[in-house]
């Protein structure tokens, strides 16, 4: 019969191995910044008024973060801050196996640190889009874990459209204040 080391000893050894590291294990995979890709077969970009950048944080099976939305001015995607048009809290996030699901609610005043009104965003047509959002809820269902997230997004009851995201080396945003720094109100309604 093989005797196992006591739990506290195993925990200690594991802790010693993790000493100095900021995170261990795979339950933080997906955490980072993901940017929508319009090249190739991502047909969603062609007619869509917005592209998205995901600032995700994964904790085991739970997922949260922010989604920044950028207004398009042509077929190509642009993630210039001047074109930012909305910053939304990720809700109902989950990450199980290789499938990631979450949603944002542009119709709700849930932009973390920002007012629901769009006066802070200067992209053409942005104020109107925020005041009268084309979707109350946008649902994301993506597959993949490390290099690419491919799946679809669904605006309310409309048919889903295919989207693809790739990781980018950027600082993870944990607030929308940067994009709406002139906003008089700060805080989250969650």
């Amino acid at each position: 019969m093989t005797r196992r080391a006591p739990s506290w000893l195993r925990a200690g050894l594991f802790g010693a191995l993790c000493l100095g590291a900021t995170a261990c294990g795979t339950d933080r995979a997906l955490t980072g910044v993901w940017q929508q890709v319009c090249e190739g077969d991502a047909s969603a970009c062609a007619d869509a008024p917005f592209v998205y950048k995901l600032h995700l944080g994964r904790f085991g099976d739970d997922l949260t973060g922010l989604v920044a939305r950028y207004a398009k001015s042509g077929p190509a995607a642009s993630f210039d801050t001047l074109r930012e048009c909305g910053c939304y809290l990720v809700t109902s996030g989950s990450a199980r196996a290789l499938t990631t699901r979450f949603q944002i609610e542009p119709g709700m005043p849930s932009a973390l640190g920002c007012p629901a009104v769009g006066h802070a965003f200067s992209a053409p047509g942005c104020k109107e889009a925020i005041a009268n959002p084309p979707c109350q809820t946008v649902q994301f269902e993506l597959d993949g874990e490390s290099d690419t997230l491919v799946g679809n997004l669904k605006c309310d009851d409309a048919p889903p459209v295919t989207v693809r995201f790739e990781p980018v080396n950027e600082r993870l945003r944990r607030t929308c204040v940067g994009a709406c720094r002139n906003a008089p109100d700060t805080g989250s309604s969650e």
Partner: protein
Amino acid sequence: MNAPRTLWALTVVVVTLSAALVSAAPAPDAARILAPPPEGFKRPTVLVYPLVDMAPLAEVSPAVVSTPAAQSNVPAFDAFVSALSRYPNLRVVAPASVVSRIKARRTWLEGVRVGAARADEGRDASAQVRLEDATRALADAARVFHEVEHAYVDPRAVARTELARASTLLEQGDALEANEAFVAALSTDARTRLRPEYDRAETIAALERARLGLLTAPRAPERFTRWPASESAAADVFIVRARHHAAQGGEPARLELVVVSANGTLVPETQPLPAGVPAEEAGGRLASRLFACLPFGGAAPVRRATREVRADVGGAGFVFLENPLDPFGHVGAAVHLTTQIAKRVSIETMAMVSNSIADSSAQITESMVTLRGAIAPGFETRLGAARFEAHVGLEVASPGAFVTSSNVYCRHFGVPTDGLGYQACVDGGGLDRTPRRVLVGAYASLGASLDLPEDLYLVARLNYAEYLFASGSSDLGRPLGGALSLGYQLR
């Protein structure tokens, strides 16, 4: 008060005072000298070197004797050594023991080996009539023999080397140096003579001149009055060297002594040995005079342990093995002071400040500053430049507020600060907060250090604590960690 009672009282007082005075009176000098020294008394050491008997100088062809150098044929000298040894305040090392002491020196064996080799080279060179090489090699051999005091172990061998040097110098035509070498040979062993078959008249005459010169005007070689280089200098060690001279020209035989100290002071003494005076009496007188000029001795110096203090500063890290989350690390800085209080006993004092690093599941929402301090006596031992130590003692620790959350928004966005963070993430809401605690328990550490130049050292330590008391409920305990530090050794 009646008269008889007063008289009785006076009598008792007088008797008591008399007894006290008698008991307080100093003992006679003789009794003090012969009394055994008190415990802890530090006796001066007197090294009595083997007697150099110069009497055979008077004989044209003295018999070659095989007497060991440590033994003398002069009863007065033996009586002197015996009498000196009876003084309880002196630690007299007899000639035989001095020879053993000389032979026990590390330099002696090497010196004899080198000297013998150079002497052989010199004799070979002399046989091949390479006189300069021969002189140089024989001079080297004699110098090395004298440096290690081999003349007191095997005087005949050293004297034969000097004799060979003298003969070679004479063949070279250096009569002055040759005479000094002949004198050196005779001063080392007065029985030194040329072999009967030796037929070089000039050498025979030169040796005879040197012998007669020493006989009429005895002179001691310089090394006779010098502290030997191979003997470590000590303030309470004295060397007694002695020579015995035969009666000459109406003068009685005599013992010539010199007391040499490490600081260079010399005390010469001469004891005549007239016929009819018992050897014990002459030796006893000489011992008495020598005793009078030697320090009496005193209390042994109290050995004070050097109190060594070592201070080191370095990086430290640990993990609470007892922890409600997955183990997470704490890194910081630690200061250690180790005070050596005895040869292998020391006290370690430790102070550490650390900050937590993120746990793997990111449930800690605020970094935790932990203060730790410990004091622990223990043992240490040295192995070359390395030192190993083990200490067990008491630790007082204060882990900072332990704030965790299982709420995914709290974990990602953090607590609300300056308008940032997740607003609902507050105590009792999404946060679990354990305030700062004070923990007290047992501490143990193992260390290994390596000496570096300039009193610096590098030390690695492993430490562990088991907390026994807490100021409130605490989920954290059993810190296991280590430290790597650079230190300086203070004295």
